[in-house]
């Protein structure tokens, strides 16, 4: 009985499946127009939300894909613009160097700084010119902005120079007008202060203002007179008798050293006063403008604090137990 019912069920299932197959086959053999109509009815009524979902998914997928390509385009444009900035800086540096070469006229060897700023040798430079190019030991190394250092060791086609932050670096210096002389060395300070210079041994009567350019004096025979070393920032309180010391901002930052000129020893004796004069004057203007704006700000702050400290008007006759002067005006 039960087996018979199961067989009947199975027969019904087969019949239903056969009917489904027939429907599918009928749909398959329908002419194009009614087939499209049927498909349109199904699409428009039954699966329209699904179609909308699919459409959104496809759009989202395309957006992802486009986003990737846009990102790539943006990255490549950014990389190019960064390279362009470096090329522009290099171009400006080379123009400056060409101008320096033209101004120096003779007695120099152009060189590239090959290694700079590595740990343990941050105060030396490997230069791409050596004995073969006529470089001699203790030759001055300069850049378009000013003094870089001096050659200490020479190889056949390269040389090693110490730059101004080196502890052994010394240069006899003077102001542009020659009113004060001193010795410039690296400044030993903390952090950023470590990348400044010191001018020692300035006579006590010679007071230098912030922004005063300091150039090499030409004494000693290594550095020609007139190479810009830096500008005075402030006086250094050392308490050493009858001489003054000053902290200086260097004309050339070590990180900017790329292309340099090595001056021949006989060039050092003739002087280069006119070469760095425009840079020295421009640097003086910049520092003075900054100092003036700082002074202005300080004056304004002082005026504000004075206004706050002014006593308020109090009654001529104060009640018993109340002081005649406002408590916040008492210094």
């Amino acid at each position: 009985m039960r087996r018979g019912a199961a067989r009947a069920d199975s027969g019904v299932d087969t019949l239903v499946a056969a009917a489904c197959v027939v429907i599918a086959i009928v749909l398959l053999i329908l002419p194009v127009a009614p087939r499209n109509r049927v498909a349109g009815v199904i699409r428009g009524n039954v699966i329209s939300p699904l179609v909308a979902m699919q459409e959104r998914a496809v759009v989202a997928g395309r957006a992802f894909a486009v986003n990737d390509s846009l990102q790539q385009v943006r990255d490549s444009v950014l990389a190019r613009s960064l390279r362009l900035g470096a090329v522009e800086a290099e171009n400006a540096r080379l123009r400056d160097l060409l101008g320096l070469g033209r101004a120096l006229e003779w007695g120099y060897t152009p060189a590239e700084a090959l290694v700079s700023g590595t740990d343990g040798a941050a105060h030396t430079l490997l230069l791409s010119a050596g004995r073969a190019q006529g470089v001699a030991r203790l030759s001055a190394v300069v850049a378009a902005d000013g003094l870089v250092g001096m050659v200490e060791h020479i190889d056949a086609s390269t040389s090693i120079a110490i730059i101004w932050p080196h502890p052994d670096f010394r240069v006899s210096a003077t102001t542009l007008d020659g009113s004060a002389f001193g010795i410039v060395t690296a400044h030993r300070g903390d952090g950023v202060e470590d990348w400044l210079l010191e001018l020692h041994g300035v006579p006590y009567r010679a007071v230098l203002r912030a922004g005063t350019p300091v150039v090499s004096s030409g004494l000693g025979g290594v550095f020609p007179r007139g190479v810009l070393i830096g500008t005075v920032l402030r006086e250094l309180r050392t308490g050493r008798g009858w001489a003054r010391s000053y902290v200086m901002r260097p004309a050339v930052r070590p990180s900017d050293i790329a292309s340099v000129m090595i001056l021949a020893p006989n060039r050092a004796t003739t002087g280069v006063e006119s070469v760095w004069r425009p840079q020295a004057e421009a640097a003086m203007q910049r520092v003075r403008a900054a100092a003036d704006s700082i002074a202005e700000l300080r004056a304004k702050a002082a005026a504000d604090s004075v206004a706050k400290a002014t006593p308020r008007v109090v009654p001529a006759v104060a009640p018993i137990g109340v002081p005649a002067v406002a408590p916040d005006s008492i210094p």
Partner: protein
Amino acid sequence: MNRSRTLVVGFVLLVLVALHFTLRPLLDWRAGVDFLVIGVLLVAVRVRPGVAAVVGLLFGLVLDALNPEALGAAALAMTITAFAASRLKAAFFTDDLGLNAIFVFGGKVLFDVLATIVEGRLRGSALLWQLLAWTPLSALATAVVGVVVMAMVRPAIDEQRFR
């Protein structure tokens, strides 16, 4: 199936349909996962073969509506696949996940082969590539996802059976 199991299966089916029309086009794999086949097989093993055939026909029509050029091809293939799956459930549909994977893999291959041949769009080497490379790959991906789906929904569905 009792009512709560029907509800759970219906919900899972809805999720699978939604995934078929959202995740599948988003992934846009050449051998993509067929969530509709997983859904049909999930239902087919829990209902009578006749009902499975009707469900297969309806799901097939849904697919066909998006491809009116071959209206009826997916319906026919899905009907046969669902009916066969429902008939074979006693032999195949066990608690063994490996057998379930083979079951889903076979179902997807059967559906693809039938649909591709009935559709008649591909010929020659393109047909061979489809049947010998892309269909097995797609079936493999579908089987992996199908096993995961079945492993996830089985506790919710089969728990009812033992109560």
